[in-house]
């Protein structure tokens, strides 16, 4: 129910046991270290910070470089284990950097080759595009056209020279198509880029190629030319894929060694980080930090074991009253079942140390509001299914914990909607079974609720307002519990969220109820007791605070302006109490409003379906589309409004998001 109780440790161990103690602390991974500043300055001066062999920054940088390299191959190393800590090896950072640089260089060479291949590929595609655009008009003049980037020549060369020609031309973007053979000569169509003219003409000339008039069969060649080009393009594309795989394999090949090095570096980094919090003199070492009180005995044993009893440990219980001053870290631990609701709480903020952790309470509050707004068992079943599918899908993906929690939340909301749907007898907008509680549908459509006490919309509004009052009162009670734990008695009694404020709120509820229900207003004396006394109590708070501060020697002198200040603050507080509590309570009417809207939309879609005949394909389509729209629209509205009411109407009564999250140094640490 509350944040995890924490305890502070101040420890002194011998300098010679430093490494073993640091190992034990890292292996346990429960300590959030703090900078030691409680000792007298003269004592602290004789202690130095521990300087590890290798700078933390260099180790972190090298570790990140290997991590990034592994990520390029889709490899994500796991967090180190305790065995890695005990078996850690000295990492030669310079050698590691050289190896990483060497991999980068090899890969850059592959990328350079890829760039060259890419350019050739693009040039061939240029040729293909040009041929496709301008066609193949094979008159002798048209072959050599200044329109194109390409050149097309027909020539003949000795047949025995053809293989050598094709081999020499294979690295130049070109098409060389043998057309026909006569005696010892072959006619060849040669297509290449203008920019390569000089080079190509040299090669052609060296193989005895001579230009001739185009033969008649050329007209049928377009397909063959395209096939030739396409096969060249395919072979370049294949080479690109091979190069891509080669670049990937560079890292995969070394991944075993890289992962081992990464693990060593990570362990060393964390080990050095733990030691960076130590202060040491010649013989002893000092460190301090916060940890959960439940781990005290275990850690104590470990430190004693690591130092062979040569240690002195002092424990300080965390006091709730000192939460802010001491910056006590906050740990919230709840069963896995509550993970989505813990996400909702964390989104709002981290609660102050020692205060109530509202996770367990937000679950029924949020789900009840959602269920009241989205009360349909069929729609709820759809949400439940979507939520479960989402959880299955996102669980497999890295870094998608938030989406897993969101899917889980949707599944819970679906469950709540199923429950409330059954209570109100709504199944995809239809009445398949009798409602367990009352007929919500019937009330909205004007046929009554079938319940002795709930028969109209005002009764539904009354339910939601009653629910809201209960939520607000729970919030106030939580605030009182927090104030009692912090021993803030003045605020507990005289604050607007303390008992004075609650007194006014309770009186307001009583007066509103008695006036609206019974048309009765109490007499003046009773009114004074109900409202007057708490209003006076509200005034007392600031003067009392001032008096207490003066007693402690902190407050200033009392002046006339101070009195005016007190009065002004009191008036503002009164306005806040009266308007704030009223608006907070009436805010819950939206729960009824959205529930009514949900039913009304379904009634509307059923009416439309009836208007188009009531039977056949079209009414079914309309009903399906209507259900989908309602699930999406109303689901989103209900989820958001439930969150708004939880945060604004409930949390603001007691939640102070001033906590700092507990982040111990452990092998699982993320940063």
């Amino acid at each position: 129910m509350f944040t995890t109780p924490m305890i502070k440790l101040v420890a002194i161990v011998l300098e010679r046991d430093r490494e073993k103690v640091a190992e034990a602390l890292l292996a346990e991974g429960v300590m959030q270290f703090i900078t030691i500043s409680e000792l007298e300055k003269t004592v602290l001066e004789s202690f130095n910070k521990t300087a590890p062999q290798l700078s933390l920054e260099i180790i972190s940088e090298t570790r990140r470089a290997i991590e990034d390299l592994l990520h390029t191959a889709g490899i994500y190393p796991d967090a180190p284990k305790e065995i890695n800590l005990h078996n850690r090896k000295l990492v030669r950072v310079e050698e590691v950097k050289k190896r990483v640089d060497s991999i980068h260089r090899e890969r850059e060479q592959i990328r350079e080759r890829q760039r060259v291949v890419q350019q050739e590929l693009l040039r061939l595609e240029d040729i293909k595009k040009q041929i496709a655009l301008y066609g193949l008009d094979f008159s002798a003049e048209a072959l050599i056209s200044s329109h194109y980037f390409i050149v097309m020549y027909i020539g003949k060369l000795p047949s025995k020279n053809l293989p050598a020609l094709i081999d020499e031309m294979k690295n130049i973007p070109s098409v060389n198509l043998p057309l026909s053979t006569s005696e010892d000569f072959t006619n060849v169509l040669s297509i290449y880029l203008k920019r390569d003219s000089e080079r190509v003409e040299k090669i052609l000339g060296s193989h005895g190629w001579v230009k001739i008039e185009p033969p008649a069969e050329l007209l049928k060649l377009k397909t063959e030319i395209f096939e030739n080009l396409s096969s060249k393009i395919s072979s370049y594309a294949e080479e690109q894929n091979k190069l891509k795989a080669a670049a990937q394999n560079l890292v995969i090949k070394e991944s075993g060694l890289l992962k081992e090095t990464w693990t060593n570096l990570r362990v060393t980094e964390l080990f050095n980080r733990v030691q960076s919090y130590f202060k040491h003199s010649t013989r002893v070492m000092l460190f301090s930090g916060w940890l959960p009180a439940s781990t005290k005995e275990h850690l104590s044993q470990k430190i004693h074991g690591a130092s062979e009893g040569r240690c002195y440990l002092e424990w300080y219980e965390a006091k709730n009253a000192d939460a802010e001053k001491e910056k006590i870290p906050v740990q919230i631990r709840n069963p896995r079942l509550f993970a989505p609701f813990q996400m909702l709480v964390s989104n709002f903020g981290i609660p102050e140390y020692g205060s109530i952790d509202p996770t367990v309470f937000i679950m029924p509050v949020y789900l009840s509001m959602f269920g009241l707004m989205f009360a349909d068992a069929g729609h709820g079943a759809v949400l439940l299914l979507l939520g479960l599918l989402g959880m299955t899908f996102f669980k497999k993906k890295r870094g998608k914990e938030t989406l897993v929690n969101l899917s889980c939340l949707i599944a819970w909301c679906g469950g709540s909607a199923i429950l409330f749907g059954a209570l109100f007898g709504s199944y995809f907008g239809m009445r398949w079974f009798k409602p367990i509680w009352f007929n919500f549908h019937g009330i909205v459509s004007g046929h009554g609720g079938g319940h002795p006490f709930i028969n109209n919309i005002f009764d539904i509004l009354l339910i939601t307002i009653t629910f809201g009052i209960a939520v607000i009162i729970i919030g106030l009670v939580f605030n009182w519990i927090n104030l009692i734990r912090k021993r803030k008695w003045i605020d507990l009694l005289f604050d607007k969220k303390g008992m004075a404020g609650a007194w006014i709120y309770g009186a307001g509820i009583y007066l509103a109820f008695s006036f609206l229900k019974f048309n009765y207003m109490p007499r003046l004396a009773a009114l004074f007791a109900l409202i007057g006394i708490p209003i006076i109590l509200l005034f007392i708070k600031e003067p009392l605070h001032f008096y207490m501060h003066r007693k402690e020697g902190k407050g200033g002198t009392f002046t006339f302006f101070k009195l005016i200040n007190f009065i002004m603050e009191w008036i503002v507080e009164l306005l806040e109490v009266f308007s704030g509590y009223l608006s907070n309570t009436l805010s819950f009417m939206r729960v009824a409003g959205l529930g009514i809207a949900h039913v009304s939309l379904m009634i509307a879609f059923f009416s439309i379906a009836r208007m188009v005949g009531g039977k056949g394909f079209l009414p079914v389509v309309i009903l399906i589309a209507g259900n989908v729209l309602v699930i999406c629209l109303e689901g989103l509205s209900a989820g958001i409004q439930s969150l708004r009411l939880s945060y604004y109407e409930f949390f603001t009564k007691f939640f102070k998001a001033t906590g700092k999250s507990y982040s111990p140094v452990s092998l699982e640490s993320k940063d």
Partner: protein
Amino acid sequence: MSDLNKYAFINAKLRARISMLIPDDAFQNMIKAGSIEEALAHLRATPFAFIEEIYKTSGDILQVEFELLKHEIAMYRDIHKYLHKQTGEFSNALLMGYEIENLKNALRISFEKNIKKNSDTPGSHYLLYDPVIHTIDIDTIISAPSFDQIPAVLSGTPYAEIVTAHLEEIASKGTLFYLEVALDHFYYSNLLEAAKISGRQDREKIFRLIGVEIDLQNITWIIRFKDFYKLPVEQTLSLIIPSGFNLGKGAVRNAYTGQNIMPLVRDFTKKYHPALSALITATEVSDNQSKLQLIEHILEQIMLHETHKMLSGYPFTIGILLAYFMLKKNEIKKIKTILNAKLYGYAEERIRDLVH
């Protein structure tokens, strides 16, 4: 149609998208990465994850930049679907900037081939052949046997007249410079024309942002015309974009005839971003290349400053559209800068300076 009707939906949509822009720590991780591949791996959880695969397959950074350009244009088209008619026309006027840049690139290739007689044209692979706004036969432009044939290819577009007017100059002076300046003039005048049909509040926002861009473009040109091309002041005055809002002809003449243009830059910056003008005072800049780089940096800072002002102002105006386009452009520019810097082996500190 009221502002609320025009902008309510697009405002909600774009604000949600703005919250999904790449955060600064992702850029920091990219800068710290040891290579281009590692930098690209940090984009896996972003909408730019696709460029990693492109680089792994081709090894070609130009191909990556080309895909980013197509992504940027697709973004404009995607947003256009949700805009009211008038706002859509303004969005198209902004998109025309990409079409003009593409046309300039195609004209440069044709110029190299026909005037400089250089047929090696690798840039043709990175041209947009599909229409951006107008249907332009880019293939024919780059393959045209002479420059004179290009206006015919551009018929039906507003560029035909501009190219025709500069044909003689291109042939006689052997430079595309004046044609490119004319195309830029057309872009800004078209943009301001499209802005005129918007409401008063929208016009004010557009003129403020575009005005900054025009004034700074003019300052950049003044430095180029004076120091690189040695043009006389009257010719410069005829070449700068006429709709500059804060730089009158008098100020331009003074800057031109004076020894140093930096006081003009400082006074201009003081109006929009006083804190930044202090930086100019403190920075001694002597060579022209540094001046141009400083001005480019100033432009980016002022535009970002104006963008953030728009985001915190009244939401139902064209400001949200301008802010989103500016932020996305800036985001893509940062990615390109980091990748190119990694390719050329720049140190981390230098990359940070370039990006920020």
